[in-house]
């Protein structure tokens, strides 16, 4: 066990866990920020995507030792009022169905928009291809990212 300190959604936090514990379980079960989801445990689906110092990472593949001292943002911290341009666009385009993968989709998309203001369709697809949506909301995700990049 080790005490590991980090910042999550702009709040300084520390937890006592094994350093090899995946960030995902600390976020979900220790800190009860359950918006971040578990899908595969192997970095294959993207449901657990969060930002580590502004970069999208798979939290199931990120050990707590790597999170020490870093700035973590989860879906709950993306915008204090759920008004990030992507969140507004996701509602306008009625993207979610079961909704389970959408936190990861939005966090992945947020990284893209932070780097590229108005991404092309090809850039969107290349950036989002690691995130699975079993309900098949992909066409709406593309439209929502395009909308956010225009209205954001």
């Amino acid at each position, binding site marked *: 066990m080790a005490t590991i300190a980090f910042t999550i959604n702009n709040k300084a936090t520390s937890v006592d866990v094994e350093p090899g514990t995946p960030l995902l379980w600390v976020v979900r*079960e220790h800190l009860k920020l359950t918006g971040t989801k578990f899908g595969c*445990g192997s970095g294959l689906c993207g449901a657990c995507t969060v930002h580590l110092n502004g970069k999208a990472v798979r939290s199931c593949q990120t050990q707590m030792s790597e999170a020490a001292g870093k700035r973590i943002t989860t*879906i709950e911290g993306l*915008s204090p009022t759920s008004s990030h341009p992507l*969140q507004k666009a996701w509602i306008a385009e009625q993207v979610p*169905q079961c*909704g389970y993968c959408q936190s990861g989709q*939005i966090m992945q998309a947020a990284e893209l928009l932070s780097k590229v203001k108005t991404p092309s369709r090809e850039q969107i697809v290349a950036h989002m291809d690691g995130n699975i949506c079993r*309900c098949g909301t992909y*066409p709406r995700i593309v439209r929502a990212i395009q909308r956010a990049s225009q209205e954001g």
Partner: protein
Amino acid sequence: MNKHINKSTLDVSRRGFVKSAAGLTFSFALSGTLIGRASEAFAADGAKLNAWVTIGTDGTVTILCPSSEMGQGVLTSLPLILAEELDADWSKVKCEFAPGNPKVYGGEHKMFPGAQVTLASVSVPSYYMPLRRAGAQARKVLLDNVAEQWKVPVVELSTDKSFVIHKKTGKRMSYGDVVKFAKVPAELPKVADGDLKAPKDFKLIGRREIKRVDVPSKVNGTAKYGIDVQVPGMVYASVLQTPMDGAKAEIVNADEVKKIKGITHVIPLPFGVAVVGDSVEATRTARYALNVKWDTSAAKAAPFDSEKAKEEYAKKGQDPNTPTKEWYVVGDADKAIAGAAKTLEATFWSEHTYHAQMEPMNAVAQVSEDGQIDIWVGTQVQPLAAAVVANVLKTTPDKVKIHLQLLGGGFGRRIWPDAPVQAAVLASIVKKPVKLLLTREDDIAAARPRPMTHHVLKAGLDAKGNLVGWKHRIVAENVDAVAAPPRFAATGGKDIIGWRGMEQEYYTIPNIRAEGVREERGMRVHAWRGIGAGYIKFASESFVDEIAQARGVDPLAMRLELTKDHARANAVIKAVAEMAGWSRKRPGRALGIAFADYHDSFSAGVAEVSVDKATGKIKVHNYWLAVDPGLVIQPENATAQLESAIIYALSGALSEELTVKGGAVQQSNFSDYHVMRMSDVPEIHTKILVSTASPTGMGELGIPTVAPAIGNAVARLTGKRLRHLPMSSERVKKALA
């Protein structure tokens, strides 16, 4: 470490477990036997107008949704139906889940009369009339009260957006104010169908701009699924799942696993090896550390190899002496084909597929000392979960309270309540609330797959080329036998789930015979989105194109001719041909068409494909789909459901495949079970034909045309017929070689 366990709690022997679980069905057989509880969802400040709706003095209208929300939008569409007849202000409506209680919340679908189930696209058709009646009844109660208060005849009153209006005097009163004095009669007023609105007067139903109520919570992380539940004092569990029913675990390294920090129990059980501990990370570490040998000597599936078994399936497909069960018969197909001027025959295959719902199976269970069992879970059938848990724990369903959560995908996987049962067994053993969470690998190992199927189709043409005889034989394990044994027994062995689609009700063919041959291999086959129609329409609609080709007829013309007696079926085919520009040639690409009815809804699809001959990869560039599902409650969501089903079916048609060796599924995660990603999605174009027919279901309607439309397009492009799902690169390459 197991010493403190009371012997009775461990009395879940394999035989007892399998027997009690198999003795139940998710269907109507359950209704009426379960004792339900009244909903606790209602605020005290207001009036409960009937079992479905309560209005608060602040004007909030709380409407209960009897179905589970798994992405199909019922948490919005069902309350919307009631709100329509109540004339409620939609902005003041709150949607909540009804408890599992089929006596009160059972639906009216002809397939599942009286059942409270979320499957087979039945929610809207099941509840369209009951919810309209409930809304009209609640409105009547309000009107009667106001008429008495204002001393005016009730016929002079009208309603709009949660207000009662007396036109003559211009008086208006909000529903919130009415319930401040309203008395709800002990015997609620009767509502006749004539009391209901004419569809042309609908104010809420059919409005594209009305959004889903669950969407805001699904973009900011606040939506709660089964996996998100935590209860005080709970411990965590993971279960290395048995690779097949009847396999017995021998744990090689139990002592080593028990030493993992945070682990309290390592328990072999009929459904697998459970590890229990104080954190999810500890139980996951322990689960992956387990080294288990499986004794499969008593497991029925142990000899099953999905590749090797094909030879036997094929023999049964051809042998005229194979015992069959009749599914759909018109005239005498055997005679017609025997006497035909020309006959055609073709065979098709489909592999097992896995639901791959994004939320791995999980449940939280608490077994209290007084015998009360609480289960927090996302399930498609609350009453089934309660009944099976009660059976396994040797109690009655009224002692089991299901706290229904959102489902992170269902697609049929969350019908069978294996996770709630396992969590409840573990909670009764460790005497603490247990949160069970499966790994993705265990979720696949415990797959309830769509069955592997083999199809033999025969057709007879007369001298003029008319189709005079049609025969379809399916060889497969039967889903009803596994998922609904009482119904399977009652129908004399017909697979209502697995054979759906073999009936050719909308093609005018004078002689038809559809029949099933039962395989018994011990696989845990279950319903998968689109059920039988998914693979059956692949076989039958591919065969229609082969017949058209043999006759030298255009496949579109052939289908228009076959559906000439059914206007709605004919109309969707015409519509999709127009959308796709059927006659327009595209260099290097081809179009393929398919038609499918599904539970009385109609669909026709066209795929535009190209094939990379070097890799065998099929690229679907465009998919057009025209549907007629009857009246549509929420058009925007209906469109979304069609897109969703098309993508689900594309994924299944092109890449999804579970292979089985020694009774065990060979795949383990998304690395070897490939589901569709964004880069493979075509342009999707949908059209809903306007209809005022009763609603007949939307959630799966986009599935059945996809695979045959692709196969038909590939055949027209390359001259090679693909006969095996999935149409993976390897299979296509082989077919083209």
